[in-house]
């Protein structure tokens, strides 16, 4: 499909495109794909951390969209509906792939350690040094469960109650996993930038005197 063919129906409203796509109009479906492909693909990419998997899942999401578009009644925004469909496609894939890794109810003891203390002066912070590539790489390195909650909340803007419903966990669990994911990301970014000099955190058994 050439870009020209896809661009032509862009002017039409999304509602019209949806109606045409529901009746099997290829150009309308192509236009809907053009409108939403980046968001769906980005979601798939962030959730999997793998371009090939993300492309396969984007493909699967749009094939499912075509199969289900006749059931869309406009009760929610089309983008919300499609996005939710894509999230479900990705989660199904992740559950099949590594079922134990995206269970939010499992305790990851490695994440329960207290907040790490860093050496160095207080100017050595991540602030201003988080570039897109290093952040994307650090997100890719997160365990799938953490990654899913972080992507859904901090990147895609889902609320914890929505994440809890999607991931079939409690709201508290979603919040907890998000916080751990952020801390882990911070650690990764600092390690990547050499900001954390010693590997072990300094935690005194005896509380120090107040600074």
């Amino acid at each position, binding site marked *: *499909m050439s870009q020209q063919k896809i661009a032509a129906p862009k002017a039409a409203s999304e509602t019209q495109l949806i109606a045409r796509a529901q*009746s099997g109009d290829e150009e309308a479906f192509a236009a809907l794909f053009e409108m939403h492909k980046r968001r769906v693909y980005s979601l798939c990419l962030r959730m999997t951390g793998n371009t090939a998997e993300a492309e396969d899942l984007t493909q699967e999401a749009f094939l499912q969209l075509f199969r289900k578009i006749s059931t869309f009644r406009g009760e929610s925004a089309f983008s919300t509906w499609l996005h939710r469909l894509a999230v479900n496609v990705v989660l199904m894939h992740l559950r099949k792939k590594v079922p134990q890794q995206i269970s939010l109810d499992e305790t990851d003891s490695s994440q329960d350690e207290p*907040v790490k*203390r860093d050496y160095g002066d207080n100017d050595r*912070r*991540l602030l201003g040094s988080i570039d897109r590539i290093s952040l994307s790489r650090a997100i890719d390195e997160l365990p799938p469960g953490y990654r899913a909650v972080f992507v859904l909340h901090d990147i895609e803007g889902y609320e914890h109650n929505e994440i809890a419903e999607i991931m079939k966990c409690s709201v508290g669990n979603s919040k*907890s996993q998000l916080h751990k994911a952020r801390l882990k990301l*911070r650690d990764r*970014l600092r390690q990547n930038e050499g900001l954390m000099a010693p590997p072990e955190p300094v*935690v005194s058994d005896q509380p120090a005197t107040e600074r």
Partner: protein
Amino acid sequence: MKEIRQERTPACYQFALELEAYMEGEKEPFVPAHAHECAFCRVILEDLEALRSAARALPLEEPSPAVWSNIRAQLVAAGAFGERVGFWNWFGQLDFLPRPVPVAAFACLLLLGCLVTVPRTYLEHQATPELSALPASTPTRSMAFAGDSGTLERAVRELEETFRAREGSLSPDLKATYEKSLNSLDASIRECNDSLEREPDNSLAHEYLFAAYSQKAQVLSSALELDEGR
């Protein structure tokens, strides 16, 4: 660079405990107050806030063109698109060919030749009252193809030859899907040709034959597009 070494205080433990809630927007006045006093906890808080902002600002990524090619190929092979393919749309499918302009020009010349050479009596025979009520282009277009099935057949055969030459690069599943779709269309084409042998003037059979060839061209072109997208 001056290095500051500090140890965890009870206040730092409390900060760590309340940080999650604070980041979720809950009122935890201790967190910012402690961060103001403790350089290390302040860095943690600022880092997490910077992370959150950076995550929100991540740009959307662009999928490769192969994604659409794959989706379209699967939908076409499954016969998902209900709209009938028009004449010029069919020509649009030729744009993947190495020399689309000469091919399209050649096809146009052949069609023009056929229009000129279709016997006048044949045109008059087709001009039934029902057809004359339709826009002028409709019967003419149908009859052009009625007199030119050989041209269309040759064009599709050329597509099929290209497809056969490249089909080895398709995955077995996809290849099987295309084969199934092509076999079904070939069966339709055979049926139409059988009908036309019995009734050469059957306009409906001509229409169906054109539709079957058009669909076959579309399936083949989508397969070739897919192959090129790899």
